[in-house]
């Protein structure tokens, strides 16, 4: 049995919790950074047997991984196994020349920067600490340090964001010439402070914002980017595949190991989520025990359905070989007839219109 080639590491610490966030995060807690990384490394030792000798990708997500105290972060990076793509998520205000150098030193070769918007008022609504200048400065700092694979996260559909605001955000982002862009519609998740404060306004704006996704896709593909996944775009470079290789692993249905609080792993038909509690996580690992997990056994039919729902997010044809049971033939025929999908041999790929409606189209195609 070949080992897992994708490793995710969760660093929950943030300087501040943004109103719209529903990730597992822990604010401040500087004194816990060291013990937490000790925990991560202990967990890595417990699970090392699952990993391949050589990894394809490592991804440090959060939280704000770059908020972690520098010496602690260094120690973690040094201890992680090497990989072809090593990505770290960063908030713009945390990016300093020293940090950039630390990341380079630690083997990081890709940075995903949470820009979100370039309009101060919109950043204010999102409760982001960084201003537009922080984003620009962060990109230049990373470039100066030699990073040649930078991704920017943008959020659209922010309360009060007009169509021209969206165009300005996209233009500002493109001006920085990132290798990769992730564009997410703001989701007002139930229970967040944000939904409490802005939910009604988002409902009012819903009709006006309906065309934003289309506009994002048109603008970015117009600028030469490849719309390779529902929410992700990359520059076309003849020498390099600039798609996010780590995330591509998820979308291709490969196994992955997740370390840290709230992290999810999927290995050989079994998925588990580690406890979100830092206290319980550290207590278990302090005794060299596995922290508590929620386990989900993935039946064959479930795995097939997931292959379909993930595969249809991509711009490359999905092979239906072996996925027949997960596909509703009549539904597939229907979306094909409506010009939302194209079948060739035993593959299927969504058309651009089909991808804008990808959720509903997938529901149609799934058995």
């Amino acid at each position, binding site marked *: 049995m070949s080992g897992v080639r994708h490793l995710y590491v969760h660093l929950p610490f943030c300087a501040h919790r943004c109103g719209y966030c529903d990730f597992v995060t822990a604010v401040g807690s500087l004194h816990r950074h060291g013990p937490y990384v000790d925990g991560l490394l202990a967990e890595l030792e417990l699970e090392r047997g699952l990993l391949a000798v050589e990894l394809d990708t490592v991804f440090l997500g959060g939280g704000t991984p770059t908020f972690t105290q520098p010496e602690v972060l260094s120690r973690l990076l040094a201890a992680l196994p090497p990989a072809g793509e090593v990505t770290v998520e960063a908030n713009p205000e945390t990016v300093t020349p020293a940090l950039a150098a630390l990341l380079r030193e630690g083997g990081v070769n890709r940075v995903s920067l949470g820009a979100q918007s370039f309009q101060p008022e919109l950043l204010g609504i999102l409760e982001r600490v960084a201003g537009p200048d922080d984003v620009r400065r962060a990109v230049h700092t990373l470039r100066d340090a030699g990073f040649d694979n930078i991704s920017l996260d943008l959020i659209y559909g922010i309360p009060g964001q007009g169509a021209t605001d969206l165009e300005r955000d996209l233009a500002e982002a493109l001006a920085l010439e990132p290798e990769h862009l992730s564009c997410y519609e703001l989701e007002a998740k139930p229970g967040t402070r944000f939904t409490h404060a802005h939910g009604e306004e988002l409902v009012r704006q819903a009709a006006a914002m309906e065309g934003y996704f289309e506009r994002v896709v048109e603008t970015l593909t117009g600028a030469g980017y490849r719309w390779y996944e529902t*929410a992700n775009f990359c520059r076309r470079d003849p020498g390099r595949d600039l798609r996010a290789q780590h995330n591509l692993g998820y979308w291709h249905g490969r196994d992955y190991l997740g370390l840290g609080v709230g992290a*999810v792993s999927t290995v050989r038909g079994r998925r588990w989520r580690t406890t979100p509690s830092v206290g319980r996580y550290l207590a278990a690992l302090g005794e060299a025990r596995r922290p508590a997990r929620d386990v*989900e056994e993935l039946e064959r039919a479930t795995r097939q359905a997931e292959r379909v729902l993930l595969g249809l997010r991509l711009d490359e044809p999905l092979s239906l070989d072996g996925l027949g049971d997960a596909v509703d033939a009549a539904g597939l025929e229907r979306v094909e007839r409506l010009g939302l999908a194209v079948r060739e041999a035993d593959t299927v790929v969504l058309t651009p219109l089909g991808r804008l*409606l*990808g*959720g509903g189209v997938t*529901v149609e195609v799934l058995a």
Partner: protein
Amino acid sequence: MDQQKIRNFSIIAHIDHGKSTLADRILEVTGTVSGREMRDQLLDSMELERERGITIKAQAVRVTWKGHELNLIDTPGHVDFTYEVSRSLQACEGAVLVVDAAQGVEAQTVANAYLAIENNLEIVPVVNKIDLPSADPEGTSAEIADLIGEQPDRVIRASAKTGLGVEELLDAVVERIPPPAGDPDGPGRALIFDSSYDQYRGVLAFVRVVDGTFRPRERLRAMAQGTRFETEELGFFSPTMKPAQTLSAGEVGYVITGLKDVSKLRVGDTLTTEANPAAEPLPGYKDVKPTVFAGLFPTDSDDYPELRDALDRLKLNDAALFYEPETSQALGFGFRCGFLGLLHMEIVRERLEREFDLDLLVTAPTVAYQVTTPIGELVEVHNPADMPDELERVDEPYIKASIIVPKEYVGAVMELNNDRRGRFDHMEYLSEQRVHLTYDLPLAEIVFDYYDQLKSRTRGYASFDYDLAGYTEGSLVRVDVLVGGEPVDALSLILPREGAYPRAKMLVERLREEIPRQFFDVAIQAAIGSRVIARETVKAKRKDVLAKCYGGDITRKRKLLEKQKKGKKRMKQVGSVEVPQEAFLAVLNLGDDKK
């Protein structure tokens, strides 16, 4: 038993005025049963009774009071069953009319009192709930006395809850209600006033013997229907089944027939003996016809056989239920069912869903139209989709509506009735505060949300009752609904020509709200013939994606899609458009235009 010592009576009342409590108390006071046993026996708790292997509810209970045999005959409490009520009353010589001291005379009080008077019954009036702080025994007595032409001091004041006045009432039943007449030695005649089906014992008839004497193992015949059978057993309930050797003129009891189908023995028919048959049946038998119709479709079309079996089984115990197979392009295979009224429809639907665990889609109710075709043929139409395009005339059923309401709501009631094509008939003051209005209304206007509207416009104060009042020619049109260009048979409806446009407009607006956005624009049109009179568009979706989907999101996203897929499977396909089941109910709330 000496005929002179028998008293047969019913208790009649508006809903919630205390009929069941009073019946309970009578059984208790006469020592027939203790309070708790009482509830088990008389309450309409079908599931409980089934657990004990009995599915028959006592429709008549025999009690003794001071040397007299009293038969208390139960009556259904609703307008849908007026015919059954009238048959139960025909089995009696008297009726106890119960009125809530805090509520006063209500529409059903009036309707029931008139029924009792028509049947020449001696009415024993009772003001109930006099122990309530809000009770007005004085005023209520005056209203009742006025209604039935009785002296106010003859109105008995009681509280069924505390038992106050119940003995006095029983004395009055004995004193005021005459004993039955009838010849115990003549040819046998027994009125069937109710019937019931039990899976072990077959059809059981509740009868009032008018003439002659009936015995077990006799050959009997139902005179109107011609059904023949041999009596397996007869007897009475007190409160449980007590077999007897005879049932003689004046007595009330049950007959076990061995028949397997309740429709063979209809309420109102007369039983006689084959050995010494009566020449004439008792008067008043009617073949009750359904007045309200609706399509019943299984939500999951695989459940069609279960629905058919369930209807077959309900029919065993409900002779008034009518059904025939119906095929709808939109809803698939189902049944067009006929009911005595809206309540009957509700009861059947509830039983199908609760007792048979079926998930049903019930189309908007409609009435039976009498259509004259251009060649002079008379056709009855139970389904709007069947209304022919070419016709000479259409007649629709009308009702005589009786509404009692505090005077400050008279305007609101008149406005509602005008909106519903009502014709004012009569208005009278029952007291300084309360007014009795009668209207002629098309039955079709009642089946659309009328009762809820009446209640909401009168803050719940109005009470309502009706009688069918024949057919009247109407200026009616069939309005078809097209979704994505495809006509949806299950949404067709028949509307008055004048007023078709605003309702059609409202209907397409409702549908636009109910039909989710699809991958393409969907036109929703209402048309009379080929002429479109209203149109709305459900705009195509422009975006439908789950933005983020990484390692930690997959399970959640998958479950979300699975849920959506499940929802989709519940939708009905109209052409290439998916229409949720709820949309088919949109027409139900069309009367709700005055919010």
